[in-house]
């Protein structure tokens, strides 16, 4: 995990360096002329007085201490601004994950036990349709449909969870649904395939032959094993939800991290963009690690140290 994070920081740092014109030039664009001494001082402040590798190491050093630099527009430190927006994006992501599991797993189980040619095709098309819906379009249609229903669309009147949990969840329901539908389709397909595979196994036949109830066989015996690949898929797709949150926050005018990122991009505020990309990528790496850990926890056959080369 650490080497990957290290690589991520290198990519982010050097990609930002590719931007034509330096941060200082952009800052100076709105300022009056500076004397040579003032320029030297500014160069030092903006960290442009040293070779690039040295700058990278210094930047990384500050990063580790929680100093993500300062916004070019507001002059405020970047990290506190990101962290202030972070809970909303996280809540959206988790809510979307929850909805995706809630919609995807039962539908997948249902599709696997009620197998018939027509139903299979319909299920498959529903699944593929879920994958094919652009999240932002779905979100726009939701805004259109619910524009007159009070409480469902925040539109600037966002209420924090800590202030009014019910109202907050109501406001985040539609955005989370818009983000989660694609993942729900993926989960549905995986659950179905995984269940079908497990249901063919000998121990299921044994369980049925013992005279166990169908419900017990499906939920206690089959699902327990079939759910494992589904957990992995859900975990690895959480990053995709984080990405989706960026667009959806914009459509629903929710003040999350994604919206901050977009405005930073529109205003060419690179320290902020850099900070958000780093935070999301780090989170993504962390989620993948947690997924691996959960996997090992759920399935006693898997030990993490055995998997290492």
């Amino acid at each position: 995990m650490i080497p990957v994070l290290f690589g991520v920081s290198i990519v982010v740092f050097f990609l930002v360096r590719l931007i034509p014109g330096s941060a200082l030039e952009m800052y100076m664009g709105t300022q009056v002329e500076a004397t040579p001494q003032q320029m030297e001082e500014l160069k030092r402040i903006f960290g442009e007085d040293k070779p690039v590798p040295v700058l990278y190491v210094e930047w990384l050093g500050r990063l580790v201490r929680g100093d993500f630099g300062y916004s070019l527009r507001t002059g405020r430190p970047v990290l506190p601004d990101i962290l202030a927006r972070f809970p909303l994006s996280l809540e959206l992501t988790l809510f979307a994950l929850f909805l995706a599991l809630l919609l995807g797993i039962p539908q997948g189980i249902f599709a696997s036990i009620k197998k018939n040619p027509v139903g299979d095709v319909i299920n498959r098309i529903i699944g593929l349709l879920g994958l094919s819906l652009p999240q932002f379009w779905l979100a726009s249609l939701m805004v259109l449909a619910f524009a007159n229903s009070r409480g469902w669309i925040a539109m600037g009147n966002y209420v924090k969870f800590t202030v009014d949990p019910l109202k907050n969840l109501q406001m985040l329901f539609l955005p989370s649904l818009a983000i989660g539908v694609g993942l729900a389709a993926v989960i549905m397909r995986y659950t179905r395939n995984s269940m079908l595979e497990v249901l063919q196994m000998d121990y299921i036949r044994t369980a049925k032959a013992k005279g166990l109830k169908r419900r017990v066989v499906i939920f206690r015996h089959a699902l327990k094993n079939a759910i494992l690949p589904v957990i992995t898929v859900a975990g690895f797709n959480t990053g995709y939800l984080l990405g989706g949150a960026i667009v959806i926050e914009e459509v629903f005018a929710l003040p999350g991290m994604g919206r901050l990122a977009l405005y930073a991009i529109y205003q060419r505020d690179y320290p902020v963009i850099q900070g958000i990309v780093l935070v999301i990528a780090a989170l993504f790496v962390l989620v993948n690690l947690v997924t691996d850990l959960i996997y090992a926890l759920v399935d006693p056959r898997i030990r993490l140290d055995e998997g290492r080369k």
Partner: protein
Amino acid sequence: MATNRLTRNGIAMTGLVIVAFYLAIIVVSLFWLPFDPVTMDTQHLLEAPSLATGHVFGTDEFGRDILSRIMKGCSVSLIISIFATALGAVFGTFMGIWAGYLGGRWDHWIMRVADVLFSFPSLLLAIFVMSILGEKTFNVVFAIGIVYIPQFARISRGAILTIKSNEFVRAARSNGASSSFILFRHLLPNILVPLIVQVSLSLSVAVLLESSLSFLGLGVQPPAPSWGNMLSGARKVMVIAPWTAIYPGFAIVLLVLGFNLLGDGLRDILDPRLRNVR
């Protein structure tokens, strides 16, 4: 043999027909469009769909015909998606097959680079790259293509690993074949199946990514029509003119569905073992 199985697979055929329909629209749009997709027409702002006026899908907030813009946007979206997928597929596959074939330290480092690219959510990476390169159409191709490099690298590496210890590879080597000859003449044709499936599914995601970028104002820039920026423009007026938001969205969903059906069906036809992937 394979074509026969293709025609008998309803899912793949449906996908193919949908994709062919869009290709036909592109060809038609080169020669004929109902109206000029770019010129504004202040006489006909936000007209509802109607056969009488000829604006079958209505007009947008600048009086432009929505059907014409969807048709024109089709080539924009599809061409970007095709080039982006090609870019990712060529670079990713190249990286992956060399990593898998050479093994050892090369494999380790090439795959670490892929891991790093993989640790950015795809839309975030595309947005980030666009913000750095600036909003030009070519840059959209690059921003989406870069997302695909690690995916193709992983798939092709995995496929190479499973076949490189086969007899025919050793036979080729003992005949004095060079590494690149073995790789491109013997190994690459053998891993085409998973790659073709991945190309089809990647095209579907590319259409979604392109429209998302354009929707956010980071992709294709107006007045050039793209389905994403049409929907972006529609946001301001969709409450009074819902058709501005509905038809371009359908255009996206149908094309993406087409690629998904095609990819899913191809997977069944070409390689039943892969049915559980994704």
